[in-house]
């Protein structure tokens, strides 16, 4: 279906108020063959995800499938969110909390970046659901640590989708999309 066709790459949402850091993280992610969307604030990130507050009910009704790459309705598929901690308005920590509180997005891995090495801050973020905490300046070696988190998300989705496919019958499995790149061949693009 559209699911497998549209997602041949991981899509990462990067949030940082500094233009330089946005450029840097964008380049780091693109070098690692990820699709990147960079926004400059937490509120824009939520807007991008379609999580404006008024959409909450719709999202709760749809199943976990909507979290995947399926470009259903207003939602865009995001596989990972990487955000700066110190931002005016909504901090990275606030954004993390909002994501984890949302039913449809709580499964998206979130990574926090900060230029300050404050252990209490790091621990609080990790306890509240952040997968990783990177110290700035971010390097390629840090970005390489993202891959296992992304792969984990995909295998879960593939399992769920194969379950739904079984329910829907065999026509889907025999669709011509079988020749297209699948989830486990992620280096395609």
């Amino acid at each position, binding site marked *: 279906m559209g699911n497998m066709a549209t997602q041949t790459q991981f899509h990462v949402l990067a949030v940082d108020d500094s233009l330089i850091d946005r450029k840097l993280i964008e380049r780091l992610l693109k070098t690692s063959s990820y699709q990147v969307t960079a926004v400059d604030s937490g509120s824009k990130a939520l807007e991008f995800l379609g999580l404006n507050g008024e959409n909450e009910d719709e999202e709760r009704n749809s199943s976990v499938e909507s979290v995947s790459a399926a470009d259903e309705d207003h939602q865009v598929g995001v596989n990972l969110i990487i955000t700066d901690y110190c931002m005016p308005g909504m901090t990275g920590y606030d954004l993390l909390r909002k994501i984890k509180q949302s039913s449809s997005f709580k499964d998206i891995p979130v990574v926090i970046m900060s230029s300050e090495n404050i252990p209490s801050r790091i621990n609080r973020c990790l306890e509240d659901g952040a997968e990783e905490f990177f110290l700035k300046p971010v*390097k390629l070696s840090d970005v390489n640590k993202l891959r296992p988190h992304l792969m984990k998300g995909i295998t879960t989705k593939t399992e769920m989708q194969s379950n739904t496919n079984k329910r829907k019958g065999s026509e889907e499995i025999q669709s011509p999309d079988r020749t297209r790149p699948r989830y486990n061949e992620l280096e395609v693009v």
Partner: protein
Amino acid sequence: MQIVNYYPTVNLKPFSREKGEIKRNVKSEAEKPLCVWNPKPLKRVKPTNKKRLREREKTNPFSFLGQLIPLAKTGLPLWMLGLAADRLRADMNRLLSFLFHQGILDEQFLQLQQLQDETSPNFVSEVVNIYFHESEKLLRNLRSLLMDREFSDYNKMGIHLNQFMGSSSSIGAKRIRNVCLAFRAASDQNNRAGCLSALEVLEHEYCFLKNKLHELFQIQQQRVLAAGVRYPMQH
């Protein structure tokens, strides 16, 4: 296209003057024209005098070639253009070594360079130019805050300072970042005089870095041009 002779500034004796128009070109760096290699076959040169040849060979670093290749009328042999590229690369490496050795730049700058490739050939200069643009704004803000007689909002200043510190560390500007740390320490103690002197050092360091990076980018541009002339022109 104008074709001129290009004489690199390496320690070479002048070539043979047998065939007229061989000029010694000792122009300054900025004026050095580019040359185009004229793809005529090079003629073998007979040394006119064995004694002269022996003398030349003593000083000629290319004597291993066995004979002197004359400077062609309309261009340079291809291998001479290689010298220009080599010299530029040496200049670039020297400048980078200096910057790293003095602690002006650190390995984050190397990370930026690693991220530059064919798909993003101007990444470093793009990011650095953004940095310059932002930094100048931030430095101006810091100065106007501190020069204000009724200055008291250290928090507001701290925001600008943190931004500047963050972008400097993302670029790999180690020395600037360290001065920012000292500035922040003074700011934490509400020490206005300390902040002012830190700001002066910061402005000085920033100017220095900007000049050096401009120099670096200029060398890189020249390298691109030098690489461009390796290919024969069509008339």
